[in-house]
């Protein structure tokens, strides 16, 4: 029972890993409704456990080399520090990964217990963090090219293709979950494997070692995380990075699964070594960061326009900030566990009471450790304990009341506060940035709507203007036609009148002459009182009402005749045509034009017609 209590921090870490990272495997498939959540959760849970139990040892071994957390209290504290870091940084929306948090927490333990940190191993781990997303990107590009080629050439019905994609998503999801379990179980249970030794379970065909049993428990915690909480993340966060097509989702998940598999497969590493190549470092990598790398790979293949490069910055920040925060939290928590709760955290930091007991009776201590660490040989433990028994001088150095130690703690506290402040500042900045982005977005939307409505109204205006222009043109041509018909009719009547005069000169018969006079008079009357002309005049006034109104406003002294002449000039009629319409001589029209020019104050260089048309 006490073991389960100590495991709780690791189980919590496993639960949060399942809740968050399952979205990397099935997020797009569930988010786009290609696969039901229930199916995804069952498949992911089974394969995560299988991956953890079958292939989880490789990455765990590397973590063990970085720092073999040897007591259960220390393992609990280190896992809790990592879990709190993940929880806290997630709450602050800072980039975080369990892989980096656990490494930081182990280094924190190394610092606290004066356990040397193997820089070669650390370099190997950090190199893997960087190369993981890059490798994911490379795999994604290659796979995407392959998928494109296959889909371009195939003439499979869209519905069959849809089914293939669904089964494909399920298959790569299962592989992804397996690799996730294999690679990331070390984050969850790795720290406990050195501290807890369970009896081997022999099922006849297979045997389950202590580590495998712990990984099985961790796998169940991840599965519980998937079942209880990942649905929400899959449906909301899973697709937020970039909406992927189902084909692209297959590529991304497969790339991620391959990367995680490569960095956790002992068999593959051995095979590579057997052909003379260097061994693959078996290190837990962040599945989220590999997914981001894969998506960026696809983005680069598509031309790189849609990529948000600032995400690379946030990944890099995660590489540095997460281990530092986790390390500091682990350091302080170990201090409390060690000094306040008087628990043995391994390394140089044995509890004082037990140190005294060790001085008195080493055998007793060995018994106590036997119950806690049954795999340790008595000789080894005695050796370790004897090695770890501090001399009086060492005790003085390690005592927390010492002058130099106080300064050390003050320094560490200041550093911790500075880092806390820095993270808070970063959080505030990112919050501000988010707010600014939100404001900018809403402003953009607002202005976009305004622009659209303005464009629409401008378009409407242009249309209306075009329509009006067309109508005006039509009316003008109508009036010109009308004017021309009046002109032709008047010309005809005038020539008729001339002919009558000629005939009248050769006829002596009074009666006929009288008749011809009457006819001539009728023509003259028709010319002066012409209904067509009146109608035309009415049209002119109606069509040019605005123009005439503006003209009257600007030049109040204008007479009706002048206004009429201006209206006719606006139709671009010649003086002769105007003369015919108004039944006056062309000379009179010229005179009227002159007067109009004077009244409108148009200089001699400007054409009167142009002035009126542009008025």
């Amino acid at each position: 029972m006490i073991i389960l209590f100590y495991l709780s921090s690791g189980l919590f870490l496993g639960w949060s890993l399942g809740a968050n990272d399952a979205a990397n495997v099935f997020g797009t498939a569930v988010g786009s409704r290609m696969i039901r959540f229930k199916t995804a959760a069952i498949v992911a849970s089974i394969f995560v456990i299988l991956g953890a139990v079958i292939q989880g040892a490789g990455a765990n071994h590397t973590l063990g080399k970085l720092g073999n957390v040897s007591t259960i209290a220390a393992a609990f504290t280190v896992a809790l520090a990592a879990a709190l870091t993940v929880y806290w940084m997630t709450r602050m929306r800072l980039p975080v990964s369990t892989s980096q948090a656990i490494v930081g927490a182990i280094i924190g333990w190394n610092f606290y217990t004066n356990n040397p940190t193997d820089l070669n191993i650390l370099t190997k781990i950090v190199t893997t963090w960087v190369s993981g997303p890059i490798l994911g990107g490379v795999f994604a590009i290659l796979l995407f090219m392959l998928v494109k080629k296959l889909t371009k050439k195939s003439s499979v019905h869209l519905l069959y293709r849809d089914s293939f994609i669904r089964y494909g998503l399920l298959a790569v999801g299962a592989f992804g979950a397996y690799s996730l379990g294999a690679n990331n179980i070390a984050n969850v249970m790795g720290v406990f494997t050195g501290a807890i030794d369970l009896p081997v379970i022999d099922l006849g065909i297979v045997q389950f070692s202590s580590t495998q049993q712990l990984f099985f428990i961790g796998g169940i915690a991840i599965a519980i995380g998937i079942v209880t909480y990942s649905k929400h993340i899959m449906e909301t966060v899973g697709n937020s990075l970039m909406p992927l097509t189902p084909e692209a989702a297959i590529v991304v998940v497969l790339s991620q699964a391959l990367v995680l598999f490569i960095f956790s497969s002992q068999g593959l590493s051995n095979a590579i070594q057997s052909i003379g190549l260097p061994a693959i470092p078996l290190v837990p990598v962040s599945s989220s960061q590999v997914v981001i790398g894969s998506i960026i790979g696809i983005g680069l293949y598509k031309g790189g326009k849609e990529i948000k490069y600032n995400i690379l910055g946030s990944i890099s920040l995660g590489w540095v900030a997460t281990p530092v925060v986790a390390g500091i939290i682990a350091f302080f928590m170990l201090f409390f566990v060690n000094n306040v709760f008087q628990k043995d955290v391994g390394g140089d930091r044995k509890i004082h009471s037990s140190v005294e007991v060790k001085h008195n009776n080493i055998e007793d201590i060995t018994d106590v450790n036997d119950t806690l660490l049954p795999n340790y040989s008595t000789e080894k433990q005695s050796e370790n304990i004897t090695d770890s028994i501090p001399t009086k001088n060492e005790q003085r150095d390690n005592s927390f009341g010492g002058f130099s130690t106080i300064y050390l703690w003050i320094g560490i506290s200041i550093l911790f506060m500075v880092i806390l402040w820095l993270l808070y500042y970063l959080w505030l900045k990112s919050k501000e940035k988010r707010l600014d982005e939100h404001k900018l977005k809403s402003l953009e939307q607002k202005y976009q709507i305004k622009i659209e409505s303005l464009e629409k109204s401008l378009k409407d205006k242009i249309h209306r203007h075009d329509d009006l222009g067309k109508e005006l043109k039509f009316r003008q041509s109508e009036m010109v036609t009308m004017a021309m018909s009046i002109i032709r009719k008047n010309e005809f009547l005038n020539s008729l009148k001339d002919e009558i005069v000629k005939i009248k000169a050769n006829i002596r018969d009074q009666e006929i002459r009288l008749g011809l006079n009457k006819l001539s008079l009728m023509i003259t009357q028709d010319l002066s009182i012409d209904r067509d002309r009146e109608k035309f005049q009415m049209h002119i006034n109606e069509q040019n009402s605005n123009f005439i109104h503006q003209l009257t406003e600007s030049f109040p002294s204008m007479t009706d005749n002048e206004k009429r002449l201006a209206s006719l000039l606006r139709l671009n009629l010649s003086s002769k045509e105007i003369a015919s319409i108004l039944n006056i001589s062309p000379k009179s029209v010229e005179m009227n034009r002159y007067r109009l020019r004077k009244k409108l104050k148009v200089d001699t260089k400007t054409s009167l017609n142009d002035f009126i048309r542009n008025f």
Partner: protein
Amino acid sequence: MSLLFKNVKQLVFDIDNFIDTVEQGVLVFKEGVINYINGEKASFADKIERIDRLEATADKLQRKIDDEFYSHSLLPQNVSDIEGMIDKIDEIIDIAKDNLYQFDDELPFIPKELVNDYIRLADTSVEAALSVFPAARTFFREPLKVKEMLAKVYFYEKEADKISRNIKRKLFHDMKDLRLSQKIHLRYFALHIETVSDKAESLADMLSILALKMSI
């Protein structure tokens, strides 16, 4: 989870069957118009009955396809586009049926001078529709090839426009003996027949957009 392959096969069959039904409906429409113009009343009545049945079958199939798509959330990213496309295909048989019924209800008088024109119009308009169905089938298998199959649709649609305009011109310019009411009536029937090609053109537009979307 997705459909089993057996069920997918059934749905693929239903979609093909749906397009076949609409295609048959359009052919029946053409025959029906020709029967009416030639005064073959019995055949015309048979065509009315057939197009009615085909339209009902198409509707039933459309509902079945809709249900399958939504209940199994098939092609989730393209489902609304595909449903829209199936709607547009269905509109073609709907309009063909309505038009044939209009012949039956309104009994338009077709003068001998215009018989050939109306037959040509029906033929060309139906040809536009017949050219769009292979493109719709290809969309499900090779979306990228759809665009090159649509040229014929646009050609026949334009031809149908020309014939329809020609009929209207003849009606209002040359045929002085007809009453205005008859001219207007005949003009509307030219329009009715032409709408089949218009619907085909609208489907072709949609297909070309969908093909473009699928290629991105």
